[in-house]
């Protein structure tokens, strides 16, 4: 049996709702194509939720916190994302910086006003677009050889998006935010990643023989 290789794990702290679906898929495709294993708080029940979240952050050496949707929903502000950011920042402190924390926002300078305690962290601004998410991920992560480009990531994102109905049906899920669909999205992103690598190899071989 093949041995398990080490994969960096990342805690993904984003809103899980219908309006955020496109960016949710963009995060999964982008992070997976950087070779990261995503730990998400999908479907964590209310009972024991905090312990589960702390556990997931503890299993990750990186975390992303998207603060673009902290505005009031039905008159009540959404504090879950900032709370989880606080937990991750504490972990960063206790691990002496080994746990790295990254913040994403849709609007420039808003995080500095809404969460001024994090003024030492430059948020990545995605403007509410998949391209913005990919560009933000590309800003903060590098791969050996630095290979994956934003257009390539977007091509994979579009390919996975086209297959969402089948992936959802295949997983027997009603929502993209179910754990089974989430796992299949991860696999689908990696299938697309392999296609990219093969395409790149073909181009390289062609240029080598010309």
């Amino acid at each position, binding site marked *: 049996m*093949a041995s*398990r*290789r*080490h*994969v*960096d794990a990342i805690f993904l702290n984003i809103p*899980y*709702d219908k309006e955020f679906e496109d960016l949710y898929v963009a995060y999964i495709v982008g992070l*997976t*194509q*950087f*070779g*990261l*294993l995503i*730990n*998400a*708080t*999908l*479907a*964590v*029940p*209310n009972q024991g939720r905090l312990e*589960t979240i702390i556990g*997931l952050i503890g*299993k990750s050496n*990186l975390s992303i916190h998207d603060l673009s949707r902290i505005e009031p929903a039905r008159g009540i502000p*959404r504090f*879950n*994302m900032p709370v989880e950011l606080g937990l991750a920042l504490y972990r960063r402190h206790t691990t002496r910086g080994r746990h*790295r924390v990254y913040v994403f926002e849709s609007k420039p300078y808003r995080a500095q006003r809404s969460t001024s305690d994090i003024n030492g962290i*430059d948020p990545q601004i995605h403007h509410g677009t998949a391209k913005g998410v990919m560009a933000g991920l590309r*800003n*903060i*992560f*590098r*791969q*050996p050889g630095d290979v994956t480009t934003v257009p390539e990531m977007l091509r994979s994102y579009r390919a*996975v998006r086209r297959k969402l109905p*089948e*992936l959802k*049906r*295949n*997983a*027997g899920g009603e*929502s993209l*935010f*179910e*754990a*089974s669909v*989430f*796992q*299949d999205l*991860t*696999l*689908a992103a*990696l*299938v*697309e*990643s*392999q296609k990219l690598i093969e395409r790149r190899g073909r181009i390289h071989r062609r240029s080598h023989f010309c």
Partner: protein
Amino acid sequence: MSAYVIGNPVPTPEEMGRILGLSPEHVAAVRRIMSTPSGRKSSKSKSRTASSFDSKRGSSRIPSKGPSSR
């Protein structure tokens, strides 16, 4: 801000499947979906779902029940 350099190459779907505790058949089913041209229905999705292959589903890193209420 300094970039974080990811130390390992991107895993294959099969490697990620093993990490997530999914069966090879499950991974193969997702591969088939992604390799079917858009607009054509996957024969796999018509006949048999990937989840029927995979008794371990939900045993991986994230819980398996319905959507959260964040």
